[in-house]
């Protein structure tokens, strides 16, 4: 299988602090890949180097074989990478549909048009994307007045608008109610399976990670501790030691497995 995203030997230091050290992984087409780790592990740093917000000191990021290391986010988006943020970033004074239309306007390079009425441009396309995330019914509501979970869905629609190869999601469920979390991730996973795009995401919620990720990368203090399928990672003794800390580990893992069992049955 071909890799959509290849990361090789990424390295970043802030002052004297090594934030990420020699991170390498690859994400294959149509897969969900999670980066996990305790606070300060380097997840966000790693993530932002892929998205272009940070420039790596060393190493390379390749998108479908093309080197994108150190390119600005704008350029990376144009090459086919959509992104959502830890704190949802949307255009609060516009309607839901207009938020998605902005992505189309930018993609078709029409943001400098001075005469045509913007609200009629790409509206059908925007509604189609909104339909996929279940927001078509609220297309004409003002985005700033939506519930937070709905804003996250709008953000997802905006990120999907230009049919990206890769979706970057930084803690997609942060700040959401538990039920909304499950729904949003199930929705994302469904879209990924059906359209064949890949997802790279960071997450604190282990339920979300083990329920949906195809592969995991575990970071601790900038170092790669483990990489593999959820089962491999779960059985890795070093992960258990770092992540769950000695004695409580077994019990915690059993709990996760138990919860996953019930979730697994509920899934269609």
């Amino acid at each position: 299988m071909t890799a959509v995203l290849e990361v090789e030997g990424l390295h970043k230091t802030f002052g004297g602090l090594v934030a990420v050290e020699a991170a390498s992984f690859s994400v294959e087409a149509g897969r969900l890949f999670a980066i996990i780790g305790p606070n300060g592990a380097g997840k966000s740093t790693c993530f932002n180097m892929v998205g272009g917000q940070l420039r790596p000191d060393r190493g390379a990021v390749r998108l479908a074989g093309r080197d994108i290391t150190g390119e600005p986010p704008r350029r990376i988006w144009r090459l086919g990478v959509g992104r959502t943020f830890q704190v949802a970033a949307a255009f609060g004074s516009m309607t839901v549909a207009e938020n998605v239309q902005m992505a189309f306007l930018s993609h078709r390079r029409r943001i400098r048009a001075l005469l045509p009425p913007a609200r009629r441009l790409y509206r059908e396309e925007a509604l189609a994307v909104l339909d996929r995330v279940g927001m078509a019914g609220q297309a004409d509501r003002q985005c700033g007045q939506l519930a937070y979970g709905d804003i996250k869905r709008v953000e997802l629609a905006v990120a999907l608008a230009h049919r990206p190869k890769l979706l970057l999601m930084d803690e997609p469920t942060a700040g959401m109610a538990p039920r909304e979390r499950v729904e949003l991730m199930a929705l994302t996973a469904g879209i990924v399976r059906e359209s064949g795009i890949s997802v790279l995401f960071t997450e604190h919620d282990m339920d979300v990670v083990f329920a949906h990720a195809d592969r995991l990368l575990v970071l601790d203090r900038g170092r790669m501790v483990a990489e593999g399928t959820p089962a491999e990672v779960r059985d890795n003794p070093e992960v258990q030691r770092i992540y769950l800390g000695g004695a409580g580990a077994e019990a915690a893992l059993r709990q996760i497995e138990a919860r996953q069992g019930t979730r697994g049955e509920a899934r269609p």
Partner: protein
Amino acid sequence: MTDPAFLLIQFLNGLASASNLFLIACGLSIIFGVTRIVNFAHGSFYMLGAYFAFTLADHMMPALGDAVGFWLAIPLAAVGVGLFAVLVELVLLRRIYRSHELFQLLATFGVVLIVQDLVPAVWGPEELFGPRAPGFTSFVTILGFRFPEYQLVLIAAGPLVLGALWLLFNRTRWGTLVRAATQDREMVGALGVNQAILFTGVLFLGGLLAGLAGALQLPVEPANPFMDIHVIAEAFVVTVVGGMGSVLGAFLAALIIAELQAFGILVFPEVTLVLPFLVMALVLVWRPWGLLGRPEAATGHGFAGDRPLRPLGTPGQLAAAALIVVLLLLPLVLGDYAEKLALEVFVFALFAFSLNFIMGAGGMVSFGHAAYFGLGAYGAALAVKQLGLAMLPALVAAPLLAGLGALAFGWFVVRLSGVYLAMLTLAFAQIAWSTAFQWVELTGGDNGMIGIWPSAWASNVTVYYYLTLLLCGAATAFLWRASFAPFGYTLRAGRDSPLRCDAIGIDVKRHQWLGFALAGTCAGIAGGVFVFSKGNVDPGALSIPTSVDGLVMVLLGGIQTLTGPLLGAAAFHLLEAYVLPLTDYWRALVGLVILLLVVAFPQGLAGFLRDLIERRGASA
């Protein structure tokens, strides 16, 4: 010229004016640090310090003897200004701490306007020469040059105040609270500190320092009603260059700017008025938060009532069509004077609309939009006077010069945001103003240029009325259309979330830059048309008051509505035409209107009407 002794004297003169600048700017900086309000009225505090000192010295020197009377009058004047600042805090600022920065800036400018009319009413319009400072009336000889003793007092005042402030901030509980609030206002509030008292105290301190600066200046410079505007622009520059909220930064910046002025005047006298603003522009591009300032988190106060844009419905379209018909027929019923008034309304409507284009949609609060109006006016006037062009080509030159100016200034402006952006637009407007004021050979200086009349075919008022309606109407319609087009949407997107824009391929700064230039070009059309209707142009067209007029029009009509600026321009200009001749207190009146709008009707006329209609609709 290069005599080292003379250079030393010039250096000492620089130090004296640095002290004066520092006293004003540090209060401004402290007030901003704690309250996050940029206090335009600080220049008024300074001016009141001089006037208070004059009156106090006038009464106390005969009663208590010269020395005691004078040296008691100075601190008392400072305390008096401090108390006035407390009054401003209690009555006004307390109500707007949570408002958008535009409203805060405008509100304090309202105080400036009121004080500007109060001072001549109380003290008369003439300059008031203060007494010489007892004990320091003579000269000292430095390397063969006579140097006034009082200048040495001024030189000492700066470091003394700096030292006193250091003690206050590092050795007292109150000072520690002020420092803490400067770093994190929310946290200080969360720790149970009474913010109201803290803020009032900070205003007292800031007012006291500005008052002291004004009072100390009295023996050197007569008290006059123009001290405020003159000093506030330089105080802004010093505060911004030093870093808002940093006292030490203000000290450094005051030194740098005063010395550059002192030596600049020797090398290139014409540059002195422009120099501080050039320094500021360069520093802000190199260090966007000033020399010792810290990055400012976005304030996050949006305008009241940010909503999705809705195109005009059928009733709106009918109303617009009716308005156009009325405007076309208007010359049939109006006399020459009224026609002229109406065409000036079109000019200011375009001016206000173009300002709202960058401010409402783009989120860039400009305190110097008059620069582009004035550049347009000067562009047309210069084309006629210096190049001998006819009216029509001159009307092309107007938006050209304004557009080029907006492109050049805008490149710097869009690199900043919030209050810093507003200050930089102000600085650029002052550069344009100073250039027009000082480049006498080209622009006629303070007198400006006269005799710029329309070509023969357009000299009839009615013909010029239609020409204005056509040009200003077309430009307004174009900007209106652009607001609804992808261009305007992208401006709003950049204002709502630069982060999201970057993640969908939009270069926000570049787009803001283009928007700024477009608005400047349209303001230039307004300026060009205006010159031919008045027949003359002077630096007033580029001045801060003209910029503020534009802001008041937008605010009066209602920011965040498209019809608002047009409505506001009409209301403001007609009011000015009919009320100004009747009163000596026009500025104070405008000031009061500003305060009323900011405190009670932040949504403006159009916003107020819209809310009213919607409420009716909801209840029906």
